[in-house]
């Protein structure tokens, strides 16, 4: 049986991921929290806006920082999910190929309220194209700042690159410990994956599109 994203999404949604009396959601081997998207957006785009106003020569560095947050987030969050008890129970029984890990992860993400992800293209070990509808980052930019001149989904882009790096660079299928050393080894590799957003709701596009490919050494 190949991975059916819908079944994964329904199973994760059925877990009733809600905060306990500590305000935490222990799930996927992680401590999750429910967080206001507007709050994250305000911090992210407030930071970027401050750079653009005060230190415009460092705008690209600010974008790199926000994208790096996505790399780190995906390494621990996606990585943690893919070695978790929940993954073993819900997704693993459907996995037949390495590419099914990507489909399974998209099924999980679609239960988390980040927007609607759709796998448009996956060339093994080479290229991933994701479509996102209602990205909370793009929606936050539109709501708070108006139409953007550039794509703005930095966390999602970093996350998409991280997914490919986990699978084809770090081989998450072997369940390596998700250490800082592994992070630097995987993401610091000259041929590791990086993402670029080619369409963005914040720019007036109907949806966001992220393309992930290997860097050239």
């Amino acid at each position, binding site marked *: 049986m190949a991975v059916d994203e819908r079944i994964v999404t329904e*199973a994760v949604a*059925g*877990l*009733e991921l809600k905060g*306990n*009396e*500590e305000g935490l959601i*222990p*799930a996927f*081997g992680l*401590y999750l929290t429910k967080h206001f998207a507007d709050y994250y957006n305000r911090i992210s785009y407030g930071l970027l806006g401050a750079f653009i106003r005060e230190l415009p020569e460092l705008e690209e560095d600010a974008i790199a920082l926000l994208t790096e947050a996505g790399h780190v987030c995906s390494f621990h969050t996606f990585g943690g999910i893919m070695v*978790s*008890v*929940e993954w*073993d*129970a*819900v997704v*693993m*029984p459907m996995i037949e190929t390495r590419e099914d890990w990507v489909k399974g992860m998209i099924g999980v993400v679609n239960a988390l309220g980040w927007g609607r992800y759709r796998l448009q293209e996956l060339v093994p070990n080479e290229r991933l194209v994701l479509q996102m509808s209602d990205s909370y980052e793009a929606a936050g930019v539109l709501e708070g700042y108006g139409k953007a001149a550039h794509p703005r989904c930095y966390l999602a882009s970093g996350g998409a690159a991280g997914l490919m790096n986990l699978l084809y660079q770090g081989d998450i299928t072997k369940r390596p*410990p*998700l*250490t*800082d050393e592994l992070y630097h080894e995987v993401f610091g590799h000259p041929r590791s994956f990086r993402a670029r957003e080619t369409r963005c709701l914040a720019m007036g596009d109907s949806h966001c599109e992220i393309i992930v490919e290997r860097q050239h050494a």
Partner: protein
Amino acid sequence: MAELDEPNPEINQARGALCYGDTIDVFHIGRIKVVQRYACIRRDQFEWTADGPFPPSFREYLAQRGSIRGSAVLYILDIPEKFQLTVAPNAGRAVFVPRLSTELEWQKKVVIEIVSALDEFVRIV
């Protein structure tokens, strides 16, 4: 020295050097392997695995400790103020996450108690 004057470096010295996810201990209770990992200064996470699926009798045993939610392939025992146990029975795998309000010694004691029961159920099967 007045209270809260200076932090005492000897307190929690050993645990303070650990990072999230670091393995503290690996031990077996019968046929069950238990991995104890550092979560924070006041709690550890415990993961246990068996060579085969957990028997249905284990779920029935857990149900006596509190209400269980989830499905046949993935269920959760959540006891407020105490712990959460997430179980993938077919994969023979479970994760125990204690609450911060519990003591480290208590956390390990409960794990040993539950895993010992599981080992008995596995032996019967």
